[in-house]
Structures are given as structure tokens and as C-alpha cells.
């Protein structure tokens, strides 16, 4: 297994939907999206945001944008207007997910790095 950091191959944007936050995770390349789609599961996101996301995590695929969209329920302390959080609207959840690392199979890692020499 090889370790890859999300910050090295994706960008993201987050916002609020009531007490839920949404975070869209976008791979810079098609190969990056293949990795995201294979390894970035709703369960992994739920575990990663333990203590922040208190509800379930939903996952949606947008292959046309090389993106996944996650809905993190019960995350914003009651929602935009009621929440006492500094980040009441979940604006910084997008940068938080960049801290994630994924363990990927050697084969996938090779495809990701070799066939994509431009990848940073």
C-alpha cells in the first residue's frame, strides 16, 4: 500500500445546508478522480470527521466534474443562523478535508503517478 495526501491532487469547496455541511472534492485530473472514486468512501470521511460531523455522511459522484460531493449531517452546531461556532457555515470544512490521507494499492499508485507525469 502507498500513502497519498488529498492536498496533493484535489481542491474543494464547502458550504452549509441547514445543520449539514456539504463539501465538494474535485480532482485536478481524471486519474486523480479514479483514485478518489475508488478510495474516498463515505465511511472514511465519517471516520475522519469524527467529533466534527455528528450525523451520517452521504456521498454523490460527479464524474463529469472529476468530483465527489459529501453531505455531512449534524455538523454545524444547529445551522447557520443558530450556531455559536466561529465557522457556523462550514466554510473551512473544504480545507479540513485536504488534511486527509488515503492508503492506495501499489498498482493504482503506479497508474496515478506514471501515466500522469505532470501530476504534482
Amino acid at each position, binding site marked *: 500500500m502507498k500513502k497519498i495526501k488529498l492536498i496533493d491532487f484535489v481542491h474543494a469547496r464547502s458550504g452549509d445546508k441547514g445543520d449539514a455541511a456539504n463539501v465538494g472534492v474535485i480532482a485536478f485530473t481524471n486519474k486523480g478522480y479514479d483514485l478518489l472514486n475508488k478510495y474516498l468512501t463515505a465511511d472514511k470521511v465519517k471516520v475522519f470527521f469524527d467529533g466534527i460531523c455528528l450525523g451520517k455522511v452521504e456521498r454523490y459522484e460527479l464524474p463529469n466534474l472529476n468530483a465527489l460531493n459529501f453531505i455531512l449531517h449534524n455538523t454545524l452546531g444547529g445551522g*447557520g443562523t*443558530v450556531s*455559536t461556532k466561529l465557522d457556523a457555515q462550514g466554510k473551512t470544512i473544504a480545507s479540513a478535508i485536504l488534511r486527509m490521507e488515503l492508503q492506495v494499492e501499489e498498482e493504482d499508485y503506479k497508474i496515478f503517478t506514471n501515466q500522469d507525469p505532470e501530476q504534482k
Partner: protein
Amino acid sequence: MKEKIRIASGQGFWGDLIDAPVNQVMHGQIDYLVMDYLAEVTMSILQKQKNKNPELGYARDIPELMKRILPECKQKGIKIITNGGGVNPVSCAKACYKVAKELGVKGLKIAVVHGDNILDSIDSLLQQGAQLNNMESGEPIAAVKEKLLSANVYFGAFPIVEALRKGADIVITGRTTDTGLTLAPMIYEFGWKESDWNLMAAGTVAGHILECGAQATGGNFLGDWESIENFEDIGFPIAEAFSTGEVVITKHETLGGIVTVETVSEQLLYEIGDPKNYITPDCVADFTSIHLTQAGENRVEISGVKGTPATPFYKVSCSYDDGYSAVGTLTYSWPKALAKAKKADSILRGRLRNLGLQFDEIRTEFVGYNACHGPLVKVDEEALSEIMLRVAVRSHDRNSVERFGRELAPLILTGPPSVTGFAGGRPKASDVVAYWPALIEKSLVKPLVEIIEQV
């Protein structure tokens, strides 16, 4: 019928860059200027203003803005569409006419769209069979009916289309969807049919990209943001729409920012749920059908957008009083900045407890340490040079919230050392306005579209 129009976004929320709409009008050719002023909380603020003064209740930035752009817009034939009419679009229209008169702008036609404000007709709507249960929790509206501050239906593009057909130069609406502001001129100019769901979806997707202003042109971009030039004069997005349903997102060349597949993709993913079902009053757009192509520098082409029929419901946004809150901060410096802030928090909480105050919530955050990313943060605490202690409280007892405000400053002389940053005075109790989203059958409410005559 035109084959192409240019629709410019001038405002992403009430409080956005004041000069943005002026720049959109002055820095190049556009046909429409669309401005979103309404967030969920805005309607309750506007309703409170109207309760105090029946002439208010709209975004007062609008008449101010008209002073700067009206002659140019009238001369060039640029039409203006905004939902900044809030809970009083008629007074907003009158204020704009007053500006026109002062400037000597003649022959102006302003239309308003209202009928969205159902605060005074909730009971009769319930009698007619409306449910208005909370969309998220399912709770019946009876729980909050007596505490309601505002209740507004989200209308879509078609009332605006009607206003344009009546010859309006300016359309001022109450609660209209952000996407409807952009879709409406496409329907009007291209003669699109209401049932052509793919076209409705194409215009809706363009509206979603425009609705947050510069968030589509490099603002808040988490990709390579450091490479973006001229943030000072950032250009807001422009949708170059074609009658076939293709749209190119661009910006004025002379302004800053960037328009790339990446910046547009980030905005497409902003605040969405199930991407296959992006629901508006006008259609259900499928965001997984959107095809983006970099068609040149600062030009992103959108094609292939698919849509399905609109639902029989409008969304309703209600707000109600839900107690009080206050936020206070103090800053502690090295050494042991975090330990000092933590100790101060524990002293504060002890004092609040000893006073027997009632709180629904006391939240402590350490700004500069983990306020944004919470338990994900792993840093050497000793290396932290300074920490802002931020404590926020919420309660239905106003006295408790006010007393909290008086307990913060004493920590400076009665707690841990190296503390500063209390120049702002005591934290004040402010009203907590909670939000109640619901649905209502379209047949139960009717948008009203009228031309306001200049007096």
C-alpha cells in the same frame, strides 16, 4: 429574438463589494445586471425594519447603487434584475424612481414581483390544506407559528419573465431564487418554453454559477489561489447565454480574477445536495450532466445540461425568534498561550455556574489553534505564539446572556496573565433567529407582477 445575451452578476450577497455592479456596467458590454441580496437571515432583518418603518424592508444599497449606474444603464439599455426588494419591493421601486427623477433619467419602467410574503396569511393557507411542516425534521409549523418573524415563498424565473414582457427596465422582487434571476432573461429573450426542461436546467446552472458573485471567478478558490492576479479589482462572472442553451462563463477582460474549469467547478459544488436533483421552482437540474470546456482564456463553456420537470411545490423560508446569544473574545500570548486560554475558559465557566445562569449552550473555541478544524489539528502547543479565546453562549433567558457579557472583561485582572484584546466593550446579547424551511403547493400562492408608476 436574440441569439446571444450577456448577463452579469453584480452581487453575491447583501454586503458584497459595493463597486462590483458598477464595474460590470462600466467595464464592457452587458445586457442584464442581476443581483442577489437575500440570504436566509436577511428576510427577518428586513421584516424587523419594515415593522419599525413601513417604508423600509428592502436592501437600501439599491437606490444608492442606482445613483451611480442608472443613466448608463438606461442609455445602453441594460436591464437590472434583483431580489433586493426584500419584504417591500414597492417602496424599493419608489426609492429608485426618486433617484431617476433627481438624475433626470426619463421614461424608466420599474416592475415589482411580490406575493411571496405569506406571513399574514399562514392561517388561511393552513386551512386551505398547506402543511408547512419543517422539511428537515418533519415537525408541524404549530411549534413555531406564534414566534414567526418572516415567511416567504421562493418564486422562480417566470414572474420576472412576466415583468420583462410588460416592458420593465428594472425588476425588483421579494424572495426569488438566486437562479431565477439569471434564468429569467434567457427565457424572455430566447422565447424558451416552460416545459423545455433541458433549457430551464441550462439557465439554472448558469444562475447557480453567478449567484455567489466572484466565487466563480477566483474568489474563495482553494485550487492555485496564489496565482490569481488583481484580486483588488476582481471581476464578477458574466454568463454569455445562447438561445441553444449553451452558456459561456467569462468576465470583463480589464478586471481581475480568473475563469477556469477549476474555479467554475468549485462554484458548481457550492452548497449543493444530491447533484442529480438540484430542485428549483423552474425545473430539476442534473449537475452530473454538465459538461465544462476551457474555451479560451477566462472562458468556460457549459453544455449538455439536462433537466427534468419542476415539482408541484415552492420552497418556503420562515424565520422565528429562538432566544439570545453573545460572543466574546480575549487574546493570550506566549508562553503557554493555549494553557492560559484554557484556564481562563474554565474560570469563566466556573463563575457562570456559580451565578446559577441558564444556558442552552456554552461553546469555547481557541482561535489560532483549532477553532476551524477541531480535533483534526495536531500541532506543538508550545509553539503557539498567541491564542484568541472565543466563548459563545446561547440561551432563552436574556439576563443570563447579558450577565455572560459582563463576566468576560474581569478575566483580564482576575485570571491568567499575558491577556489583551478587550477594546470592543462588553459582548451584547443579540436575537437568535432560527430558520424553518418548508414546502407549499404551487396552486396555493400566486406571484403578483406589477409595473409601479412613477409619481
